[in-house]
């Protein structure tokens, strides 16, 4: 097959660009540990509340500037451990987030941050995040889960 020399230049240039993208995300994921949320820990979706992690949802300090945030999602609510559905997190702290669903698939997205994962029945989704900027963030469900899908939310306040 005969290829025009300009087309060859373009294919080399394009392939090099794609390779560059892959190297950037690959190094970031496998060398610097910034992988997409992929936790493979399972549980019985009908017995979420009996699982040690989800007995008492909410924010707990587990170390020096290190926290565990556990949230149970269900149609159409996030149980974040507080009645007003507000969680206060210190800025710059390491926060290990664990969440799961008791019914259908939900989304778990703290808008304006990189915390964005799927919650699927039977699986625990985890992600470790450091909130770099103070402010009020909204946790929203970004996967359709039923007629009240758009009513699912909670507030994350990142405080100084």
């Amino acid at each position, binding site marked *: *097959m*005969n290829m*025009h020399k300009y*087309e060859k230049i*373009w*294919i080399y240039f*394009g*392939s090099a660009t*794609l*390779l560059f*993208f*892959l190297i950037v*995300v690959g190094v970031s*994921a*496998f060398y610097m540990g910034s*992988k*997409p*949320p*992929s*936790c*493979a*820990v*399972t*549980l*019985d979706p009908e017995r979420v509340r009996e699982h040690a992690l989800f007995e008492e949802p909410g924010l707990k300090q587990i170390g020096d500037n290190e926290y565990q945030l556990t949230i149970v999602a269900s149609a*159409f609510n996030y149980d974040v451990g507080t009645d007003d559905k507000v969680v206060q997190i210190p800025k710059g702290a390491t926060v290990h987030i664990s969440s799961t669903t008791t*019914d*259908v*698939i939900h*989304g778990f*997205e703290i*808008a304006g*941050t*990189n*915390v*964005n*994962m*799927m*919650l*699927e*029945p*039977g*699986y625990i*989704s*985890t992600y470790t995040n450091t909130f770099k900027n103070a*402010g*009020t*963030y*909204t946790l*929203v*469900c*970004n*996967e*359709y889960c*039923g*007629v*009240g*899908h*758009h009513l699912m*939310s909670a507030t994350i306040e990142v405080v100084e």
Partner: protein
Amino acid sequence: MNKAVKSLPNGDSKLVMAHMYVAFTALLVGATMGLIQTLERSGAITLPAGISYYQILTVHGVVLGLVLTTFFILGFMLASQSKTTGGFNKTERTIAWIGYWMMLVGTLSAATMILLNEATVLFTFYAPLQAHVLFYIGLALVIVGSWLDGFVMFKRHARFRKENPGEKTPLLSFMGVVTMLMWQIASLGVAITVVFQMIPWALGWVETIDVLLSRTLFWYFGHPLVYFWLLPAYMMWYAIMPKIIGGKIFSDSLARFTFILLLLFSIPVGFHHQLTEPGIDPFWKFIQVILTMVVVIPSMMTAFSMFATFEARGRELGAKGLFGWLKKMPWKDARFLAPFIGMLFFIPGGAGGIINASNQMNQVVHNTIWVTGHFHLTVATTVMLTFFGIAYWLIPSLTGRIFTKTMNKWAIVQTILWTVGMTIMSAAMHWQGLLGGPRRSAYSEYAGNADTAAWGPYQMAQAIGGSILFLGMIVMIIIFVYLAFFAPKGEEEFPVAEPSEKAEKPSKVFENWPLWIGITCALILFAYTIPLIDIIQSAPPGAKGFKLW
């Protein structure tokens, strides 16, 4: 009055037109739902009579994403197969009709369940939301029906090779076969989850369903699905567009090579839709991210071929300078303008697609309305404008009528409305998505915080774009009805481009189907075997069905 001359044998014309009636009815219904959605989400209207946003959204997605596309594509590909190989025989036509009726019955069955609010599960129907069993049976019928249409194309292509030994096969016929091969191999995944997981579960024969397995099978199909939309547009660009501008096919061999690459690499990439999901190993996610980047390459080759086709033709017409050839293009011909703008929209569309597939970067945009903006650039603009461009000559050439000058003007108005509407709507969706606005959500004030309140203006912009698009859809429907039933009788050309005289004969290896199917399967097995075993072996207890609407 002129005599009506059809571009295809009478029976084939009827078959293709039957597909087109369904496709454009779907456009009318689906785009109307789209308008209602954007208005609802702007906060301007509240839906009456307890109709939910999500029911409307399910109609929109199913009717446009599955019905319009599938019927138009199969119709167009049957037409180009018939045109380039010399028509179907009686058996082939009968099988195609059976396929058509299966798809139509399936569509009506699924649509009835959606209208009865028994299947408000959106067009992705993720378990454990559980729709009525007739919804799933309808989907299965659509898929199996489409396979029959595919077999007809395979058979006609094989018959051409038998009847013309040693001759190269027509490019459009070859591309149709590649597209349907990809479609059949890919839709096996969704057929398996629907038939073996969802139908028994919806009937109550089994109590629970393996959610992750079902999603993985769905996305094994879901990404090739978008290539099933795109490849027919590429067919038009490679093999028809050159004729419309008066030129030749830039390279017959490269076009075939591109399609083979698309066949090989468009399937083993489904994990890039599941990057933020638990239960899938990050290593295998990354492997499929790499394969996704490989499938970008044939699209890059397509981009070059298109520019080269235009430039070569422009220079033949005496164009000077670096971009003088642009001036030589037939801008006032809607058959050219609509697909050309479609091509331009694939530039931001492709850029967005690479971003979506970039492993952990997906967290920025996953399930935000950025994604909705993305596929309204790719399928709803690139693919749809190309399909509209096809309809302008295909419909009259099948009904023995002509695409009049007046209709051409309306078609240009249509193209402009679509371009402007989609630019506004899609840009607003992309920006709102970067700010975190979720997709597939009714109007909501959430917790009343400032971050979510800032999404309001973007939703208003989407309603403006959606309204312009609605007008564009109405114009398109008027053009379709006119071309199908009222345009003056005559002969409209079915444009099929020729390779240039100097073209090298495409290598025989392109027709080595066992080889290509073999490599395709090998790549799929490589990308999916270990993660699938893992998903099945370490599966949690299954999920019961829920009806939360």
